[in-house]
Structures are given as C-alpha cells and as structure tokens.
C-alpha cells in the first residue's frame, strides 16, 4: 500500500481501533501530535508547579515523620514532571522549549496550584483531594493511545499511590485531634473542595478538546464522568472523618446511583485559568527564578562534560 495521507490516516485509525499503542516513530496526524504535546507538557508543568504550594510546608512540617513524607512526595512530583517531559520529548519538542513556554505564561498548568496553602491542614487537603482527583485522571491515562504517555502514567500511578493516603492520614490526624485542629481541617476542606472539582475541567458541553481526545483514545472518560467518580469516592471518606463537604446540594441520588452535587462556579474557574488566581503570578515568578538562576549551573556542567570528553579523546 502506498503511503498517501489517506492510507496513513486509515492505518493510524485502524491501530487506535485495535487498541494498538502509537509509538514515537509511527506516523501520526499532525493534530494528534500537537494535542499530545500540549496535553503532556501541561501535565508535566502541573507536576512541577504543583511542587510549590506543598513544598512551601516542607520546612514547617510539624513532625519529623511528616517532614520526610512530604519531602518524598514533593520530590516524586519532580520525578513525575521529568517522566512526562521525557514522554513529550519523544514527540519532537525539547524540555527547554517547554520550560520557556511555561515561564512565559504561554503554556497552562492545572489551575488548582494557583490556590495558596495557608495552614498545615491544607497539606492534608491537597494530598487527599487534589491527588485524589489527579489519580482519577491518571489511572484513565495509563490506557492512553500514545505509548510513552501511557507508560509514564503507569509508573506515576504506582508511585502516587502513597500520596493520597498520606494526605488522608494528615487530615485524619487533625479530624481526630483537638477542636482547633478539627476546625483547621474543616476550613481547608471548605477551601479546597470546589477547586478540586474544577480540576476535571469544564463540563462536557463546554469542553473544547474533550471530544477529539476521546476519539483519539488519549482520554477514555469525559470530564463529567471523572468528576462524578471523584465525588462518589470522596463523600464516604469525608463522612468517615466527620467533616462536612461544603455543598448543601450534595445528596445521594438513588435513581442515578450517584451523588448529586451543586453548581460549580465556572466564573471563578475561568478567572483562575486566565491568570487571576491568588497565586498565578507568584508561581510563575518562582519558576522563572529557579530556571534563570540555574542557567549558569546547567551551562557549567555541560562545559565541563565537553572538556572532559575532549581530554579523554586526547589521551
């Protein structure tokens, strides 16, 4: 068969239909490639920016056990960013390019990280809710049609399994602690609940990229489906802790077999996406600082390696 565009597209579609993974050297439609680069790099940026709100509390963690757990977790996020950047690099972009897109504000990352972590309870809430929401998405992505992305997600899901448990344990210690601690946990839950629901993105009716991503089997479930699974999973977890989810419309719907939940404030969502969140500017400032101040280090290491290679050659 000749490699006309039509044939290539048909072959590509046949592979998707047969659940055969697409690999870096395979032919793929330009738009598929671009969508993947956008999505994987956004995902990577979210991991890297996500290190900041939690990293904030490493130095203030209230016990040595908590300090080690949090440090390991934030480090894992760096690792996950690395795996994802590597997956995106197989599509022909460079890590430097992706960093520059992030730093200039051109690339997006998950808006959840534009909210501040104010108290230690926020570290519990972030682990429990934000990681919980992320896992819903990531488990789905282990089946993504692009091989390197799916494989990165498998590794990430394996490693993430302790993150949500850590967050829940932190929240549990507070919920079962003094009245002051319990109040701290409830306050954190109140602030993180709605932004966590927003993490799944706009509702299916509004989502611009969703349908195509589903057709390409990058995504397997819609935003609303994932959001519903998250709500269903989280309600009993909150009940166990004796904490109240801040939604008066939340109730079990026998007919649907799911929890109904209240309306999400999409104005807030879009404000934060567009840069109006409490921490958007700060996060980018910190990323730019680390990248720019690291430039001489990266250059020096490269220069040294070149010198070393040169000397080896001459010996």
């Amino acid at each position: 068969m000749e490699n006309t565009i039509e044939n290539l597209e048909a072959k590509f579609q046949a592979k998707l239909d047969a659940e055969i993974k697409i690999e870096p050297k395979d032919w793929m439609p330009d738009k598929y490639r671009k969508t993947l680069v956008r999505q994987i790099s956004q995902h990577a940026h979210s991991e890297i920016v996500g290190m900041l709100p939690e990293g904030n509390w490493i130095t203030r963690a209230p016990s040595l056990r908590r300090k080690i757990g949090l440090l390991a977790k934030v480090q894992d996020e760096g690792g996950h960013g690395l795996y994802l950047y590597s997956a995106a690099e197989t599509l022909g972009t460079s890590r430097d390019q992706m960093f520059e897109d992030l730093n200039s504000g051109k690339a997006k990352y998950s808006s959840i990280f534009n909210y501040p972590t104010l108290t230690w309870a926020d570290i519990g809430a972030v682990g429990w809710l934000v990681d919980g929401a992320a896992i819903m998405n990531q488990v789905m992505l282990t089946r993504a049609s692009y091989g390197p992305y799916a494989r990165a997600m498998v590794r990430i899901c394996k490693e993430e399994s302790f993150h949500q448990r850590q967050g829940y344990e932190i929240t549990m210690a507070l919920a079962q602690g003094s009245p002051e601690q319990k109040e701290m946990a409830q306050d954190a839950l109140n602030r993180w609940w709605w932004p966590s629901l927003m993490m799944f993105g706009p509702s299916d009716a509004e989502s611009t990229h969703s349908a195509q991503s589903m057709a390409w089997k990058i995504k397997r479930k819609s935003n609303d489906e994932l959001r519903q699974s998250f709500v269903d999973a989280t309600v009993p977890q909150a009940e166990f802790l004796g904490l109240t989810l801040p939604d008066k419309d939340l109730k079990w719907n026998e007919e649907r077999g799911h929890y109904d939940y209240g309306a999400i404030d999409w104005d807030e969502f879009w404000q934060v996406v567009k840069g109006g969140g409490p921490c958007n500017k700060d996060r980018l400032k910190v990323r730019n600082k680390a990248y720019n101040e690291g430039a001489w280090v990266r250059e020096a290491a490269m220069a040294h390696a070149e010198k070393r290679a040169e000397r080896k050659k001459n010996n």
Partner: protein
Amino acid sequence: MENKEVLFDYVLRIADNALILGHRVSELCGHGPSLETDIGLTNIALDLVGHARVLLQYAADVEGKGRTDDDLAFLRDIREFKNVLLVEQPNGNFANTIARQFLFDTFNYHFFAALTNSKDENLVAIAKKSIKEVTYHYRYSAEWVIRLGDGTEESHEKMQSALNEIWDYAGEMFVADEVDKQMLAEGIGVDLNAIKALWEERVTAILKEATLDKPEDGWIQKGGKQGKHTEQMGFVLAEIQWMQRAYPGMEW
C-alpha cells in the same frame, strides 16, 4: 559532666548536623537548577533528615527523660542545638550550597567511617546504616565541585568565591573540646585529628581537579557545638519549630 550527659551531648551534635543541613537542603526542593539536580539534592535532604531521626531517637534514649525525637527537634531552644555553624549557613546560590555540602560531606564520610569502630554499639549500628548514603553524598558533592570549578569562567568564579566565603566555618568540625576528648578517651568518639588529615587530603585533591584554589586557613568561626550559633540559626528554628510552638502538645 556525667558520662550519660556527655554521650547525650555527643549524639546531639551528630544528630543536629544532619537535621539542620537536611533542613537547609530541603528548602531547595522545587527550586533546583535542573529537575535531575532537584531530585538528587532532595535525596540528600531525605537521607539527612532520616539520619537525624534515628540519632535523635537514640539521644532521647540516652537522656532517659521520656522525650522523643520530635521533642528534641521541635522543642529545644537555640542554645541546646549542637550542630556546627557550617551547616546552618544559608543556601545562597548553587555554588554556595555545593561548597557547604562538599566540606561537610567529606567530613561526615570520614566521621561515620570512624564511628563504625566505636565502642557504643548503637552508634556503630547507626553509622553502618548511614555510611552507604553518606558515601553517595561524598561523591555527589565532590562531582559538582569539579563541574562548577572546571566548567565555565562564570561557574569557576562563583565556586571559588563560595569556597572562600564558607572556609572559616570548616575548621570547627575538627576542633575537639572536652566532650570530644572524653568521648575519644572512652573509645566511643572519633579522633578528629585523624579525620582532619583525611579531609585535607580529599579536599585538596578535589579542589585541584576542579582547578580551584584552596583558601588560606585563618580564623576559625566556631561555637555551634557549644550552642553558640550564628544569627541564621534563629530563623532556621523559627521555621522548623513554628507549628509545635504555636500549637503545643498536639499530635500531627
């Protein structure tokens, strides 16, 4: 001082070095010059805080007053912290961080190696367990000194000034006071003079490979081992201890 008190003090010194340096390095998590370096440095921070934990648990046992590792980390006041001044110095730029790390890691490696021959079984067990990680740190920071020293003109200059700036703090690691002497006499502690020779040899060799000048020995800034710290330490403790101080007596 009674034997038990001397041993308590001695273990605290080792523990606090790990705790405070681990804390300093942990400040960098998420801010490293490259992702790989960020992850590598955080491994070092994790190792150090891990060492601090077992050492503080042991110190608490030696003291025998029912305190825990967390009590010792979060509820001692500044004068009761016994780390050397070197480790409490701020991260500065990456060259400052590496200079501090290299001088300490080189000391720590030889210190732990010697500690495996201690007469105190607990210290031997801790040293044997930690030495593997400490050996990795010892190589890691030396590699970075070489890269930065023998990298670009800019990195060479930054690495050289970082060494010059921190050099006065290195000497304290080898100044033996009464506690060190008593512990050595009892076969528990490490002979700091013997380690100094090994440290000098290694530092000289690495700096040479890195095309860096070894700074002149001059005045030694010291006092940390006796709890007389630099002003930096107050801020370090303010951050480490804030939660436990603001919400006393709670479980987290």
